[in-house]
């Protein structure tokens, strides 16, 4: 039983990473009907920006230029990196996707893959082929809760992720921009005719998705402090699977499916050798999709019209 709870904690942590990234896929898909296949690499860029910001802040602290406790550095790192990664997302949208707004969807998919490769190899060119390690910002403390060992980092990762998901929920439900995003998901063409600047909304969507990916990247760096330029590929694909499983364009679906993915992976690894983990986990998901091709919350093929 304690073994079960031990894995539950791990599943929640991995689920948080998947869900945060999957949200970016889903939000962009819901308003522009395209999957941003560079999104996994945005996660990587976010992790690296976080690495840069955190390293810089740690250096400043050690020179005595500023005096900050580790958790404050983490908070600042998250805020600054979210902002910078959002800018990357906005540039990707402006340069890569906006010119293709009315092009066939395949063009956008190809562009996304190319942008991904540019981000990976660009990073390789700047940072070199060696892996970098994320600076340890918070001292790891392990709690023993009835035989289940939980670290403060794991708790922090899950709590911070849930906070951001809740903030996103409030944003989408209660702000005028969120309302515009929901409207664009149903009918994209009429939204500007109601006085809504859709290019702003599209840029905002990319910014938010990229910001959440940066949070995932930093939290990942806190838990597993080794970063490499190709770390976004596997994460990107898995989060993409979560977005599909949740139902294309559904925020609630992406969140739940992200966590479900974490659970399936961890619990498969409980019962089978770890080399078989992904094979079995993703076969299960394939099976779910065979019976529910539009995911948990997606609408069956919608006949949305675009001009």
């Amino acid at each position, binding site marked *: 039983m304690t073994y079960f709870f031990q894995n539950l904690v791990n599943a929640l942590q991995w689920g948080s990473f998947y869900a945060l990234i999957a949200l970016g896929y889903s939000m962009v898909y819901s308003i522009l009907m395209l999957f941003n296949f560079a999104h996994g690499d945005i996660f990587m860029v976010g992790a690296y920006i976080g690495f840069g910001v955190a390293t810089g802040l740690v250096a400043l602290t050690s020179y005595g230029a500023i005096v900050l406790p580790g958790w404050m550095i983490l908070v600042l790192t998250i805020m600054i990196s979210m902002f910078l990664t959002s800018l990357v997302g906005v540039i990707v949208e402006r340069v890569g996707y906006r010119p293709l707004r009315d092009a066939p969807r395949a063009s956008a998919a190809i562009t996304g893959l190319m942008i991904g490769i540019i981000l990976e190899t660009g990073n390789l060119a700047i940072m070199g082929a060696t892996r970098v390690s994320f600076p340890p910002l918070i001292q790891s403390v392990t709690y023993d809760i009835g035989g289940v060992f939980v670290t403060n980092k794991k708790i922090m990762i899950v709590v911070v992720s849930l906070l951001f998901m809740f*903030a996103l929920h*409030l*944003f989408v439900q*209660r*702000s*005028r921009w*969120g*309302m*515009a995003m*929901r*409207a664009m*998901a*149903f*009918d994209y*063409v*009429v*939204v*500007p*005719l*109601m*006085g*809504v*600047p*859709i*290019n702003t909304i599209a840029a905002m969507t990319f910014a938010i998705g990229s910001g959440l990916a940066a949070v995932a990247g930093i939290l990942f760096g806190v838990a597993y402090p080794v970063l490499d330029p190709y770390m976004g590929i596997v994460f990107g694909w898995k989060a993409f699977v979560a977005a599909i499983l949740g139902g294309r364009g559904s925020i609630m679906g992406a969140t739940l499916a992200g966590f479900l993915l974490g659970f399936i992976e961890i619990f498969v690894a409980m019962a089978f050798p770890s080399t078989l983990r992904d094979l079995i986990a993703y076969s299960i998901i394939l099976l779910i999709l065979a019976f529910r091709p539009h995911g948990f919350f997606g609408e069956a093929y919608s006949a949305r*019209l675009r*001009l």
Partner: protein
Amino acid sequence: MALLRIENMTHYFGGLRAVHNYNLDIEPGQVRGLIGPNGAGKTTIFNLITGIYQPSKGKITLGGSGIVGLHPHQIASAGLGRTFQDLRLWRHMTVLEHVKMARYSKITYGLIGAFFGTPKRRREEAEIEERAYHLLGMMGIAHLADQVVVNLPYGAQRKVEMARALSMEPKILFLDEPTAGMNPEELRQMMEIIRQVRDAFGLAIFLIEHRLKMVMELCERIQTLVFGEVIAEGTPEEIQNNPKVIEAYLGKEIVE
């Protein structure tokens, strides 16, 4: 000074001339009609004015300033509201949300307001809701405010489109076949609503219609469009007796 003035507007889709030398002057409070057979280019004219397409040639001024080349959301905010021939509602949003969405450019509370429900947000939301219920009341659908639009009957959906367009406080309202698919009772109601709306808001209204009876009763002046060209313009009586119009609608043999 006309509220909306269009001068020599021409539009090509590739090599196809969809609209040719189109002119229009609408004064505040006027109801104008645009009729013509299917494919004549009526909806294209709406799309050109509202900024979905850019006219190949010509000048459009709204309230004295040129609007060609502006983004559709800028034209909408400048005072041009519109409904659609094929209902374009946001299926799983409520009636009230539709009307609220059209207030987008008037909402001033930001992130803090959205997250924490500041007094400013409460005040603005209350104002928006009060206006929304007033409009829905005029349309006779206030009791449906919290319904998701996909569940509503067709006639009610048309009224939601109208309320949404009016919610922007337009100076001029474009109605693209506002009674398409309606039964006679709904048709009568819609005509009543259009008159009410014009009187209550002092709006100019420009409508596309297939039902001649409705256009003849509502409009002060009517244009007849055939193959992208206005072949006749005048009062309902003039249009009704114009041989070119009768020919376009009924065919040449019958006229002869």
